[in-house]
């Protein structure tokens, strides 16, 4: 995956995400999920890392969708074989979670195998509006910086806490930490902005295009994606 042309990879994995959004078939969602894990394995990307990163999206989704499964539990329907094995709510929950799992895994696979600046270069190549790209670039950069700032702050506090804190103390400490995190983030943001400007960065940042190439691997990848999309369409019909 890392060696694939970034444009082909971006288009291919985005197509898979679109496929998971438009199909209700659990089999198709599972197939996408399986293909993503297979590609990850073949590319030497740790499967556990792929799973843990996509779980960050799946778990909150599960929590959000859970009430739907519970509150629509009385909508049992009868088919030729008797009762359906799941309630409508439960089957909705399973398909929904599978959909999110497949889409997020495809997204994580894209991020794990492609540098963010390459993704931005490709999007620019696809003529995505500059303003959107700028928002993406700035958000990505400051998210990483803020995460590192928060990590440092948490470590510094942790190293000076010598006893177990009660709930009230934890909340009050947390509030103080949040306040200093916000102040530090603003300061850090200012300094990074200065560093950007000092290196001639203007409103619209520029990046070099990655070296594009389309070879046998790219065609194989395209073929795999095409088969999956065809399968998805057949299953939907």
């Amino acid at each position: 995956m890392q060696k694939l042309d970034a444009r082909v990879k971006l288009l291919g994995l985005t197509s898979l995400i679109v496929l998971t959004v438009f199909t209700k078939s659990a089999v198709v969602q599972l197939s996408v999920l399986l293909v993503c894990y297979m590609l990850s394995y073949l590319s030497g990307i740790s499967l556990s890392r792929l799973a843990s990163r996509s779980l960050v999206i799946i778990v909150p989704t599960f929590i959000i969708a859970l009430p739907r499964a519970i509150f629509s539990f009385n909508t049992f329907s009868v088919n030729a074989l008797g009762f359906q094995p799941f309630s409508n709510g439960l089957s909705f929950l399973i398909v929904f979670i599978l959909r999110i799992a497949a889409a997020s895994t495809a997204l994580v696979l894209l991020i794990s195998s492609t540098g963010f600046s390459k993704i931005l270069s490709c999007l620019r190549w696809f003529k995505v509006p500059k303003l959107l790209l700028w928002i993406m670039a700035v958000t990505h950069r400051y998210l990483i910086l803020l995460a590192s700032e928060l990590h440092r702050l948490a470590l510094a506090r942790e190293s000076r806490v010598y006893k177990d804190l009660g709930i009230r103390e934890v909340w009050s400490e947390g509030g103080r930490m949040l306040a200093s995190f916000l102040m530090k983030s603003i300061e850090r943001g200012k300094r990074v902005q200065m560093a950007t400007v000092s290196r001639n960065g203007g409103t619209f940042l520029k990046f070099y295009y990655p070296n594009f190439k389309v070879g046998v691997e790219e065609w194989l990848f395209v073929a795999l994606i095409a088969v999956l999309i065809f399968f998805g369409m057949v299953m939907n019909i």
Partner: protein
Amino acid sequence: MVIRCTHCCPHILWDGDEYLTSKPVVKVEELQYIYQDGTVGVEHANLVVDEGECAAIVGPNGSGKSTLLLLMDGLLKPTKGRIHIFGEPLNEKNAKRLRRRIGLLMQNPDDMLFNNTVLEDLEFGPAQLDMPKDEVELSIDRVARRLGLGNLLNKPPYRLSEGEKQRAALASILVTEPDLLLLDEPTAQVDLDSKRMILHILNELKAEGKSIIFTTHDLNLVPYLASKIILVDRSKRVKAEGSVRTILQDIHLLQTCGLEPPDITKLFIDLGFREPPLTIEEGVEALTKILTCSKPRGC
């Protein structure tokens, strides 16, 4: 090869054929900067740094050294006073154009390295200047080899050691080949190897005729790099400006600014030397003379 007289006429250069009068790259006049909360950043600063010169801005913590550099790069707007860069008065209109010839190294390398990989950080500056990619690749290759970053290019910056980060940050400004380097504490928080490497490269750049202004409070480093010292004190004013030898041998002046002379200089001052050495090498030379001389104090 351009030769500069560092004693009597530092503004005169000799290029082998004729004398050339040096031009100031940075001229600061009556500069004042006050932060939004009312804190004074810089007060009545006056200084001149000539083309090809390496000047050290030295002073204790909080004396406004970093603020001075940010002002020289046009990142902060002076409250009062003027700054001339390459002979042009620095203002909002020409700051972007002038900045193309300036490389600023900030005190914290983490602020400089905000991309996903070191390579992307090195490409950042040239990309903003629309430099041709093949030319940039050659430049990155050259700078990375010079700074020992060859095997770190594809690593994320936050995985690097402090020394590696500082070298990567320095590389990120050298790829655009600026004429003026503004370096904020370039050797602070780095290990000995990285310090040596950075010093070696800065000396090479100096020999190539680049103008360098760096800040430090480590006076042991100054004699190895600078030809001139700009001394600032806690009142944020420029207290003195002069040759490295004159300033570093004036222990009283340094102490009023909250600084100590280099260790070797202090040792020889304590031993009663009127003209103490500034570096270990000079110290060894002085000691050798003492050991081979019958009248040590007279040497």
